[in-house]
């Protein structure tokens, strides 16, 4: 057991855990941030995707001792004032979720995409979200919603 200082969704947190505990379980079991999901534990499905200094990262294979940077989870995706992220609004507008279990991970990957690429093509989306399974098959709507969030974001920026 050792103490680790983490910055999660803009807050400083301290946890005392085994150094090899993957960030996923620190978030879920210790910090009770359960929006980040467990799907496979071997970096295949993307359900556990968080962002570390902006970079989408599979938290199920990242030991807490190796976390170097600020962590953002789905609970921290909306703006500080509570305004939903354009992707969250688009997800609702396009009725993307079915069971909803994969969607935290999808949104975190998509958020990173929009920051580096404000006008993604279908191919860009396919590439950026290649790491995220959706067992329910919501892929068609994910593509649509990412496009519409990109437009909303660009319109807001232009305004």
């Amino acid at each position, binding site marked *: 057991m050792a103490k680790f200082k983490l910055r999660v969704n803009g807050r400083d947190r301290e946890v005392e855990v085994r150094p090899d505990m993957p960030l996923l379980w620190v978030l879920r079991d210790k910090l009770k941030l359960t929006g980040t999901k467990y*799907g496979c534990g071997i970096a295949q499905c993307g359900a556990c995707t968080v962002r570390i200094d902006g970079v989408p990262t599979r938290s199920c294979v990242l030991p807490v001792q190796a976390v170097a940077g600020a962590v953002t989870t789905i*609970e921290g995706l909306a703006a500080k004032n509570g305004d939903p992220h354009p992707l969250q609004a688009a997800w609702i507008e396009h009725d993307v979720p079915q069971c909803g279990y994969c969607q935290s991970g999808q949104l975190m990957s998509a958020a990173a995409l929009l920051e580096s690429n404000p006008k993604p093509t279908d191919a860009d989306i396919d590439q950026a979200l290649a790491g995220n399974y*959706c067992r329910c098959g919501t892929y068609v709507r994910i593509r649509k919603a990412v496009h519409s969030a990109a437009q909303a974001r660009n319109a807001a920026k232009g305004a």
Partner: protein
Amino acid sequence: MSTTSGLTRREMLKVTAVAGGGVLLQATLPMAAASPPDDVLVGSQELNVYVQIDRDGQITIYSSIPEMGQGIKTTLPMIIAEEMGARWEDVQVIDAPLDEDKFGRQGAGGSTSVPRNIGTMRRVGASAREMLIGAAALLMEVDREGLQARDSQVVHISGQHRSFGQLASLAAQQPVPNPETLTYMDPSEYRIIGTSVSGVDNFVIATGLTEFGIDVDVPGMKYATYVRCPRIGGTAVRFNEREIKGLPGVTDAFILEPNDAVGESEVWFLNGVSALRGGVAIVGDDTWSVFDARSKLKVEWDESSASTDDWSAMVAWAERTAREGGGRVIAGNGGVDAALADERNRTAEAFYQFPYVAHVCMEPMNCTADYRRGTNGEPDSLEVWLGSQFPARATEIAGRLFGMQPEQVQVHPLRMGGGFGRRALHDFATEAMAISHRAGVPVKLTWTRTDDIHNDHFRVGGFENMKGAVGPDGRLAAWEQHYIGFSNGGRPVMGSGLRGNELPAVAFPNARIKLSMQEIATPCGPWRAPGSNTNAFVEQCFIHELAVLAGRDHLEFLLELMGERRWIKEGDIGALNTGRAIDVIKLAAEKAEWGRAMPKGSGLGLSFYFCHAAHVAEVAEVTVTADRRISVEKVWVAVDVGPIINMSGALSQVQGSVVDGLSTMALQQITMTQGVIQQDNFDQYPVMRIAPTPEIDVHFIESDNPSTGLGEPALPPLAPAVANAIFAATGERVRSMPLSEAGYTLV
């Protein structure tokens, strides 16, 4: 059950989250502000068990059917809201507690939630509307006849109106109308039904606040993992207990003996394997500590009665059985032999194969249980939190495990991260209850993905040997279908065999169906459209083979098989209606521009299937490269499930079924060697990623047949449509799934 607030604390949190977001997202219209205050009316009023209205006009509708992504939590409340004349923006939907005395059957499976509940929902809504109208008549001192409920108000022909919020208190005191005399809205006046409504939980999902079973947190809760014998049916004899208990974060470890405690309705799926398999439970402070402890675990297993199932042996047996041509005839006549032997006819024989597949719900199986021993002579009690398609079964299991009475058990149903039939079975709940009972603490049992795959109740694999003949006139002359599948205790396992209502057998006289079965011990269960998801592949591909043999156009041949427009069993909604079939087939073909010239390497494939009272036709357009890279460019789907309630939800189910069908046919296969499942995780059992997703063009024929469910029936036609398209593109016949085994890569 108290309904003063109607909310548990957990639900309250959800509502707050929705409301907070709702304001931001859709600028809800608080109607109370616009209405004159009415001091007589206070509080939130229960009009019936499903509907409450508060004085501000907030309408609360309870959702009692488990939600697993099929959208039922949105669909059924839409029906209530429509019939009562509510405005959807004023509605919030809350999960009902599990209380079947109050809400009736609270289960989801077999695409039956809409047909089972639509009548009740309409009655509930119409009854609430009549009570609101009754209250308005009293308040306005007018006749009921001049009153109408719409947009969350009751409006009089004079123009006077009262909001539902103003009427709620008085409405709750009105007599409950006699269901016999209730009137229902004319569909032409619908404002909610038939529109696209976004899922009521989408805000909490998109913000990560949804509580799935796996997210449950109970005070004092420990985390558990359960290790079963890799060979299905083996039991634990001893393990390195001292070492395991000494590991960091581990608080307890013990063996559980196998136990057959299981709901009556689930015995069939186990194929002789215990519901609670013998194994080793490890309990600890967090999920990682118990997962990680498994790498140090050494167990001595007793495999004397374990499964010896072996996929390669099954294949060898099936090929032999097909060659020998035996089988028990379950339907058909002797005209088949004559037609197959007739030299004027052209004949074909083909051996089809489909693998076992797993459910791999995105949320692995899990359950939280808190078994509390009674003090001071109080009886023991049990609380269970789980995502289940039939949550009441947990109570039944507790009865069998511990002899508990239903009142000693409280079950909290939670949203499921996928169901697909897997969460119709409750082995994981049995384990969690037994572990909490033994450990004496509340425990959350989470299955690893490997547990989830190894201990699935699989979609059964199987084989079909097909024979057919076409006459000199190019028409179907004979059809023989030899199903080579699996049984346990002499009874076909779930999903194996033919139901005797398959096409073309039902619509064509010269057909014979035969069955050969081999005993297995591998548990099998319902997997999205059981039976149909494999039989559609075989039948719809072989019909295409015969069309090609006859030199006929596939569309024309398929329509000809349907014959006259008729109901195979008049008045039985569960029976094929060839008229509805013809309509969807023609529509899919028309939308896909069937018959158009295709470039080299591309092809169109057609299929039709009837199941779950739904008629669905699909056309797939594929491109295949010389190095066997397959791209499914577009899929056209024509569906007749009667009138659509939530257009967005219905489309979602069809889109999801197409993706699921493609993912399964292209990539997935479970094999077993001497009872050991060979695929451990997604690296060996992949799910389709986003890139290969085709364009999906869906068309509904909203016939005036009763609305039926759409969670399953759009899946079966996908695989044969794609396989037939591959033939059209390449001349190569696909008779085995998955495509990856034949060297195809889906791109």
